[in-house]
């Protein structure tokens, strides 16, 4: 690279050959600089780009428009409460009837995730099988059509739970992201973020009163 050796092109003419030394350039400063810049760029490069979770909310209902009726037998209510805890119950809470019992769960893999998986077993296994087949090469379809297929499975689902996520006051944003992530992990096709209603607020309060250990700050 830095060595320049000139060769005499006309040898025959009896000219006296002048022996030329190859010019050596000291490359050390250049190497130093290159090394420095290299280190700088390596350290400033952000390799792992942040990931995103896409959320599509239903459009705001217009006036005089009734929200769609919910199938009670499929409803699964998840109430997020403070201290990273989750309460859940099936069906709808009707103040005129006996209120459903709240069950306590947490965000570990044996917590709310197990509940959701048990409720959504059929669809979960279908989607999981599809994903595995694609990864193992049993099913040869382009990568970008996998998502479409999963969406079609979601749409065809008639028995899976409809999850209503309700966050009480004092819940951290992290918990909400976690619970939406649970939906993605367990392949729940239908879920929605809704406001907590007064009846449920009362249910949470009475649950806390009868189980004082829930709100005490002690992490397992």
């Amino acid at each position, binding site marked *: 690279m830095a060595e320049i050796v000139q060769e005499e092109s006309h040898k025959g003419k009896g000219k006296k050959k002048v022996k030329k030394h190859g010019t050596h350039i000291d490359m050390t400063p250049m190497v130093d600089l290159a090394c420095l810049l290299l280190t700088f760029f390596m350290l400033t490069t952000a390799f792992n780009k942040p990931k*995103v979770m896409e959320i599509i*909310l239903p459009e705001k209902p217009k006036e005089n428009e009734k929200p769609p009726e919910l199938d009670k037998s499929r409803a699964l209510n998840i109430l997020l409460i403070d201290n990273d805890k989750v309460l859940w119950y099936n069906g709808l809470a009707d103040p005129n009837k006996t209120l459903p019992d709240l069950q306590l769960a947490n965000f570990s893999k044996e917590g709310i995730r197990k509940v959701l998986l048990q409720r959504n077993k059929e669809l979960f296994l279908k989607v999981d099988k599809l994903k595995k087949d694609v990864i193992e090469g049993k099913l040869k379809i382009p990568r970008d059509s996998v998502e479409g297929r999963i969406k079609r499975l979601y749409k065809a689902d008639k028995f899976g739970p409809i999850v209503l996520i309700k966050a009480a006051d004092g819940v951290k944003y992290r918990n909400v992201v*976690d619970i939406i992530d649970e939906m993605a992990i367990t392949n729940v096709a239908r879920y929605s973020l809704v406001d907590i209603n007064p009846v449920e607020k009362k249910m949470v309060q009475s649950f806390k009163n009868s189980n004082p250990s829930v709100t005490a700050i002690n992490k397992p």
Partner: protein
Amino acid sequence: MGKIKLAVKTPRIDMTPMVDLFFLLLVFFILTATFRPEEAAPIDTPTSTSQTPIPDNHLVTILISKDDKVFFNVDNGSDSTEHIRGKVLQAIGSNYKIKFTPKEVKKFEGLASFGVPATKLKDFLNAPDTKAREAMQSGIPIDSTDNQLMMWIRFARTYNNDLAFAIKGDGSANYPAVKKVIAVLQDNNVNKFNLTTDLKAVELPSDFINK
């Protein structure tokens, strides 16, 4: 006895291959480098298993810090010649009757996320250094009486109509603050948006694996 003197030669190492390699790596890193932008507040995003990468440009980011302050960021579009940030700033200026000098507009285009009320924008842009700027970041007002975030979103969409939206909230921010931001997005008919998260692995309960 005559000793035989050996000429001591300093060994010369041919550095050419090393230099070649260095330059190759250097070029690679220069070309792939995306600088971490200076952010208005440190934000520790929650984790999720989602693997979708964040879009490179045409993105509005709404940051929510640990203490529930709201910050806003919009990029310049595909490249800086589109001057989208500048246009948005001037639109905000005319809405709040503030006139920005070309120098201030240029300064604004070079910045990233910010969280100052419109009335303080001029001071913010004329602040001498990063520290002074940081002290002024009190968050963008989103109360119903003075919903400036709404304005920023509206004007950003006016000048760039294929914007994606991302909410980058701190894990320990309170959910009501995030809910307010989501409500503002929905008021602007943005029903599809992203939540920025860090990656974590999926774990399943033991009886649901390999079935």
